[in-house]
């Protein structure tokens, strides 16, 4: 049960007050250029999930204020390094080994 702070409304609440919406910062190829999307890129976009062990960035929605934001979390131990608004600069994972 993660404890998550919403970077938009600054409420800190249990994981149950949020919904995970998959990987953040995924590029939708057709948004870049709808006129040509290569089959490979489309396949990757529709199916791939970079869900390896380690630091991952995911979209979460705050049920309280309705905002989508991103979370930088270690998928091995569930440590949360940061939550941030989608228009913010990307925070980096902490240096020290976890």
């Amino acid at each position, binding site marked *: *049960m*993660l404890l998550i702070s919403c970077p938009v409304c600054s409420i800190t609440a*249990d994981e149950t007050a949020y919904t995970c919406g998959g990987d953040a910062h995924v590029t939708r190829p*057709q*948004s870049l250029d*709808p006129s040509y999307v290569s089959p490979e890129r*489309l396949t990757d976009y529709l199916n791939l999930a970079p869900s390896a062990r380690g630091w991952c960035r995911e979209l979460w929605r705050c049920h309280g204020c309705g905002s*989508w934001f991103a979370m930088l979390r270690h998928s091995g131990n569930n*440590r949360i390094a940061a939550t941030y608004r989608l228009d913010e600069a990307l925070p980096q994972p902490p240096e020290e080994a976890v």
Partner: protein
Amino acid sequence: MKGRPHRLKPQAGTPFGRLIDRARPLDFRFDGKRLSGVTGDTLASALLANGLRIAGRSFKLHRPRGVLGIGSEEPNALVTVGEGGEKTPNLRATMVPLADGLVAESQNRWPTLRRDFAGVANRFKPLLPPGFYYKTFKWPAALWPFYEKLIRKAGGSGRAPEAADPDRYEHVHLSVDVLVAGGGLAGLCAAEAAAAAGLSVLLAEETARLGGIADGYDGSVDGLFLLDWIRAKVAALAAHPNVHLLTRAPVVALHEQGFAWVVETVTDKTTADVPRERLWKVRARETIVATGAHEKPLVFPDNDRPGVMLATAARLNLRRYAVAPGQVAVVVTSGDEGYRTALDLKAAGVEVERVVDLRLRPDSPMVHIGMAMGLSVSHGSAPVAVRSIWGGATVDSVTVANRLVIEGAALTREIFCDTVLMSGGWSPAAQLVGHLGARLPFDPAIGAFRPADLPLGLQVAGAANGVFDAVDVIEDGWRAGEEAGRRLNPKKKRPQNRMSAEFDVTRDDPSEPVGMLPDPAKRYEQARAFVDFHNDVTVGDLRIALSEGYTDAEHVKRYTTLGIGPDQGKTAHGNSAAILAHLTGIVPTEQPHTTFRPPWTPVSFGVMAGARRGDGFKAARRSPLEQIIRAGSPPVEAVGQWWRPSCYPVDGESEEDAIRREVRAVRSTAGILDASTLGKITVAGPDAARFLDLMVATDVGDLAPGQTRYALFLDDNGFIRDDGMVARLSPTRFLLTTTSGNAARAYDHLEKWRQTEWPDLDAHITDETERWAQVLVSGPEARALVERLDGASTLLSAGSALLEGMVEGVAARIMRARYTGAPSFEIAVAAGYGPALWTRLAEHGATPFGLQTLERLRLEAGNIAIDHETDGTVTPFDLGLGRLVSATKTDFLGRHGLMRADLTRANRKHLVGLVPDDAGLVPPPGTQIVDGPSAHPPRRTSGHVTSSGFSPTRGRAIALALVANGRARMGQTVHVFHAGEARPARITGTDFAMGAL
């Protein structure tokens, strides 16, 4: 004469029986027998006081077993308490407070505890080595079901209740700075120091009392007897405004980021307004595990006989309940703990034949006190057998041998006694730490696992931390509490006056970490030296598992069942690790433990479910028209979280008859349906049109205000997710309707894309679903009916498909629709006006119709319904709705996905009409379409029926179906199976050749 456990006579001036009130006897029943105990007893102490040695039967071998421990670690004395719906199996007798009229039963025996037929298993023990079931019951294969039935019968301990649980449970949420698990000396001191640092503290203690096992020790702190000192601390903590104390409330699980489950037993006698148990969902910034330690049994042959008990448990039984384990005792110990027990026994008038100390040259204060008090002690000896003279279940003697030359017969000696009290040192009870994924290293110095690398936000204190002497425990508790303060208020200076105390307590020498006795063992002895009491795992079993290649600790556990019983091996894991290391020759520090997982002690399903049962299971949503439409108790069905009437039978009509009547009413006059549950979402703003054109496959940006269009929503794969009407309310404002089950999801979906993919588009999405009560008026007379509403005719005369204005004096929206195939109007008014609107329409003669009627109507009209004609793998083209996919937009969700090879394949399944030759045959939705109706499977299928029903309008059964290449197969005959028989049906268009309805 054979001694039995018994209650001591009251004796002034002795420390025995401090928790009981002899003046208040309690009656209870055990296995049907009436027994009596006294107030303050646990069920275990009361059973012992009544002289009962055997409290249960072991899981596999049905060996008779007595009470071994004192708390939740108890592996043997598992009982069923209560009757009827209140029956609770598998309770540890040591944790059950005795109450008047309590009804308890032993388990895993038939017919009685003393004479258990399955006890013969013990005779066949050699035939029941670990994993014997993997090697046998294989032949003949046909008999396996029979064998399995026998195995199943033999498995299991208690029985599930036969009646529903009458009790209530609740959940409570609490955020605190510090959670302290365990209210022994360490926990209390940790709480004290944390509170002194200004932190809020929840201290949760598993038993009914605070102080832990401190009452097993003597000495004084700050001039007060240990217990009095604790009393003062408890009183101060209770009065502290930042401290909440819970008893009968074990911390059962630790999770990420300081989340913990604490299960409190609120009462044993519940009423409607008092829950039996309460699940505290605690969020703590720091957690201190002060859960104490479990005394390790010594592992020697027949160490499981009733009458063999843990030494500290025996001492605590004396001190707390004035219960002595027998009359003549032998204490076997690898440390000082045994001496304390021996001295207590002596003081209580139990004869202590001998203290058998495993250590070669023990030289601690406790040993000297013991000798001075006249205990007869042998050093460097070990128990090698426990016997019962007449082949009985219990203890008549213990044989001890010199440890240095253990096999020399001359050096063994049989000592007669009726109880053996053993102490193999302490094993920190820090399993909670493992819940967070931490591994506890094996500490050879104490012969047990001891927490080391701790996850963030977690500390361990006291015996759980491998710190045992009271002096050190107190210091360690304070240290942990202060450290929590430092971590949470890093700027604050260290507390000015650090906690301190004057001690006068004896210090123990460390126990010798012995794992297994006798060290060089004979096989038949190993086969009777128990490591896991509950699951009957012996040293011999471990050796067999290893020899068969199950060498990894995890394999050993799974092959032998070591530690997987209800006690989760609390008294076993220290010993088993030492033994496994010994047997395999690995360096003990390399010996891992198996994963410690929640819960610490078992947790009832009821308390986990909490209020989520019956009508609290999942909230049902109520339409604004609920009271009216459900007044006559029509049949209802679940749609998302709603209940929607299927139809409105009158005068004992069947459902099907009601549906047909309602269909005819709509086709001939007009009907009304509660459509309030449909999703209604507005999208407003300068970029509303652009945004919607990205979200919807259908062109909508070109709609003029007042215009509507039926539209499809796809996912980016190209598959249909939802459908609905899109209406343009104004140049910058759109209204979308969605299917009932999808409203919330559709809103979330729109918001997600707007916020994450197109944040620059200026469009605001508002979920108006709950705002509107909505009535669908449908039928040839619909317009006339609607026009009878005040103001409606003026509004309708504007002619647009969507109109906003005043109807009957309130703001309303009217949208034209043709979903039923008949002229229809959806009238929406603010929710509170809904009932009045419905009533008015009904008064004007409209026939109420339900969801199944609507289904039938749209089926006749050949219209699709989401989740019927779609299943997440269906494209608009499959449904013949390609015209709803924009040919001009360069991008919308699903556009590129739709172009992939498989989605453009020629012979995909197409939506078609299906007309069974037998006009009365309705193939239920899901029925497969068979190409070749051969007598035997496999038969090729080419699709399935998506919707079906009897069409009152056509006077025959009709269906929609997805059929491979269906559009090219018009007029062909296919088959559906009904009652095991192939029945022909014809593929038609989806309009069923009905023309305009």
